[in-house]
């Protein structure tokens, strides 16, 4: 039951982001350990247009510092970071 609730909550969240036109690419990084969540975001950032947004869902706590630090040094921007149970959700905007 709890699993279903979490799933529907997540689906709703994804739907909202998509319909609002904010998300250009979804990345499911759950289960990947440091530094792979950051590596995958870096690998995919050029797949969205400048101004585009990646919504990345990770579970590795290390990503909470890694992805914002990566964004800071590469000139991109983390618009939002939120936690939903074990999931850590990042909205990353390609700035340049």
């Amino acid at each position, binding site marked *: *039951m*709890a*699993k*279903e609730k979490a799933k529907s909550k997540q689906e709703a969240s994804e739907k909202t982001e998509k319909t609002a036109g904010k998300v250009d690419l979804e990345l499911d990084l759950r289960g990947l*350990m*440091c*530094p*792979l969540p*950051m*590596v995958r975001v*870096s*690998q995919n950032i050029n797949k969205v247009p400048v101004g585009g947004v990646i919504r990345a869902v990770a*579970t*590795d*706590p*290390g*990503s*909470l*510092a*890694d992805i*914002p*630090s*990566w964004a*800071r*040094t*590469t000139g991109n921007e983390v618009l939002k970071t939120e936690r939903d149970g*074990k999931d850590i959700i990042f909205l990353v905007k390609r700035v340049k």
Partner: protein
Amino acid sequence: MNKTELKTITGVLEQGMNRQLLYYLDVCTRCSICKDACHQYVSTGDVLFLPAYRAELIRRVYKKYFTRSGLFLPSLYEARESDDRLLDELYRSTYACTGCRRCMYYCPFSIDTTWVLGVAKAMLIAAGKGAQILTELAGAAVSKGENIDLFKDIMLDLNKETEKELQSLIGDSKATIPIEKEGADILYAALAGVHSILPPSVIFHKAGLNWTLSLFESANYGYFLGDVEKGRIIAKRIVDEAKRLGVKEVVISECGHAYRVMQYLYETWAKEELSFGVTAMVEIIARLIEEGSIEIPSGKERKIVTYHDPCQVGRNAGFYEEPRYVLNQVASNLRELNPSREKNWCCGGGGGLVAQPEFDEFRIKTGERKAEQIKQTRAGLVVSPCENCRLQITALNEKYDMGVKVTGLSDVVANQLIGRDIATSFEAGQTEEPEDED
């Protein structure tokens, strides 16, 4: 390549051309013994990955710009211009190397290819051709160190969650994972992630140690990148923390290169003597068992267990007996890989390769020998005290159907201490209340 770029690259080469490098470039007789020692050359047959050729690329550039014979008769003396084609070859050859030093072990002159490639990496970085993802990872680590106050609250919150996991695992509601504890004896530098924090926490708690957890991860991508300055800054984060807290010993997590950086490279890089001891996780576990601080319960594990010597822990740091001593306490059927110890084959994932997607296919291909080696032992559990090795062997396990579970030395010991199966994973959230099943 314009004149300024060329001057920069040759300048870096000249700067790195010390007696050691000159010796390496001079004594190689091209005997090619190293061809059978390198897992990458054995797997691919590509000369680019032959250790002697890796060094040869540097040697040819050296001849061209720093010897008269190479300057005036380049084709006769195999001298070569430093052009974009050479840099592309150098890139593939250099950043593909895992730095395992198996070639050095077999070389009659002990030529350290990793040392030569250190200069190659410096040249590539100067040419703006350093590995991009390693550059970004190193940059992020430096940035985290400079802006730690932005992340501290998040990390402290996460630590509270990990602490609850620890309390649940060991059945002690007062157990803590201290952070920034002044006067602690030990500063433990983990990797990012609960899997690297919980098992040592169980061990340290059971041993009654006065310890504290570092705010910084031990991994050092500046080292993999070959950027000494970034490597120094990344390691300095932990050094400064250790000094500030006044610890006597820094314990490095099960991460081969991180130990090597802190124990063998930092003092040279920083030109400062460390005021504390540096200990590898494998070393402290063996010590705690030997001195009786922790006791492994009787009833040894009977399933077949094998041990993979990480290159940076074994060949490059000399820890062969400690992990075997620990594993023989835990398991009654430890089966060696053939070959093992100083002759062990590299898993293929070191040198930062597991973090470089451009080498994914290559590292899986060049890891086939490791997969075969493990299969031959018929072990169900592979223990290796290095994160890169574990990630690589886990990937090989999927690709080559090895049917094994891969884990760390701290994990098997911590599991024994809390009465669990030694192969149980330490993951975030595993001690939560079970969810309802429909």
